[in-house]
């Protein structure tokens, strides 16, 4: 069972979230930056649900942002922000920092659950790629837009699979759970050429 860190200064609300998510995750709770730091140092956090406004700065993202930075740089956790602060600046800054999702309170629980499910899916896939020894690394600039970032990610993934299968189209399609036609299409689209032996 994955560990989910729940950071919110509202104890009653935190407790209800813990009950709702307790069936699928091992939930650990923190009500302040200090508590969250302690947990991050002691536990391995897969997913974190973080409120931005924490005491003593309830009306800024200061405390939440420092927790998020620690989670992203020390644990590579999937961080979902759940906050009442609907500031586009905060959202943009945090997405650039690398948060997985930015959700606003009050949120319907099924919406939150699907965000968690997506985070889970990403964790599983990353693990799978790691187990299959497929090293996937790419550098994208989120400021250049979602489409450009997504295409760069697709290109790098395809390249790594093709290298692993020694440019065997059939095996690559199977690994990517896709068709051969699709693989040819992307090879052409991204101008990928087989390296000379």
């Amino acid at each position, binding site marked *: 069972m994955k560990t989910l860190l729940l950071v919110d200064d509202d104890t*009653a*609300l*935190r407790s*209800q979230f813990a*009950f709702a998510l307790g069936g699928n995750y091992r939930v650990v709770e923190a009500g302040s930056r200090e508590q969250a730091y302690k947990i991050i140092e002691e536990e391995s956090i897969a997913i974190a649900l973080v409120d931005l406004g924490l005491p003593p700065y309830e009306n800024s993202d200061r405390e939440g942002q420092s927790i998020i930075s620690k989670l992203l740089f020390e644990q590579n956790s999937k961080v979902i922000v759940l906050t009442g602060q609907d500031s586009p600046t905060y959202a943009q800054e945090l997405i650039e920092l690398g948060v997985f999702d930015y959700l606003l309170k009050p949120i319907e629980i099924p919406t939150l659950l699907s965000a968690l499910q997506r985070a889970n899916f990403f964790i599983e896939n990353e693990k799978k790629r790691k187990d299959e020894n497929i090293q996937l690394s790419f550098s994208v600039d989120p400021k250049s837009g979602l489409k450009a970032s997504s295409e760069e990610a697709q290109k790098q993934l395809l390249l790594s699979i093709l290298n692993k299968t020694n440019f065997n189209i059939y095996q690559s399609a199977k690994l990517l759970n896709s068709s051969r036609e699709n693989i040819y299409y992307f090879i052409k689209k991204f101008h990928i050429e087989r390296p000379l032996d």
Partner: protein
Amino acid sequence: MIDNLFILFLVVGLTSIGVIYYFNYLLKHVIQVLMQLTTIQSEKFDDIEEFIFNAKRILKDIGVENILYELSYSDKELLHTEVSNTSFAKVEKQINDNLVKGKVCLEVKTNRGEKMIINSIILNILVMQILNFIHTKIRIINENFIQIAKMQTYMAHDLKNILQFFQVMQYNVDNIKSDEEKSRFIEFLQNSTEPINQKVNKILTILKTNSLMTFEKHVSKSNSFASFFEQYAKRYSLKCSIEGDVMTDINPNYLQTIINNILENIADKKVLDTEIEMHVIIEKREDTLSIEIRDSGTPFVNIQKLGEPFYTTKQEGTGIGFYQVYTVIRLLNGTMKCENRDNKPSILITLPK
């Protein structure tokens, strides 16, 4: 020659004394007027319109006339200018609208000659006072706006959290599928915050009281009313005298609920080391049992509200005790009447035999 010099010294001396007395008189006058203005300002601090009205009256009494000051303020600066007589009509209207419209006007006429300087001093001080007055008011308004904005942000934050709390709670309640989950959910609520814990406990107590209704009425063992009273009087250190007794086959849980709650309530009236005495009369009548409980404590307040759930007169009371007593007595088809006799509380319980 000496005589002439003497007369000259005498005239100069007398003139000097006259001048000193005159300035002394003027100074006293200024101080008096300023004192009056200060008194008005401190009394009418919140109402600049009334302050100006009174100030004008005083200035008129001392003969200050014929000067018109117009004070105007905006979000950037505060100005005061002397304006011409031709603006009088326009300014008169503005006086009535003052502050709200962003302008305060002071219309006075001044005489010429000896009092001009002194009146000018008074007027300038008055204008300064009004300027200070408006500055203070603007500062207070600005500070209040900042506080309101802060409060609004906090309230919005709390409101979103409350809405979120109810949404998650509703989701949790909808998804409870077993008794085990129900108990776990209650445990979560109890462990979350102290106020929620208290509310949950109250609700659980009410549910428990109502569930007493499902108890079987048949109890094989008979109990003595008097023994129950003795037992609980001892527990709460009450001096208790009992007259009569009746054996009853009413469920002992019911008796405990009734007697425990009533005696606990009496014991709570103790202040410091004062001893409360109580007297219980238990009688067997034709078709009923009657129990009368009197005590030497403070009389009942709001008798009609006794027995309502959550009604309490105690600072740390839950308002559950008497509600439980009423519920159990109603369940047994009995009645309970609370009253103050000779300013002392008395409870009369009647139960079917």
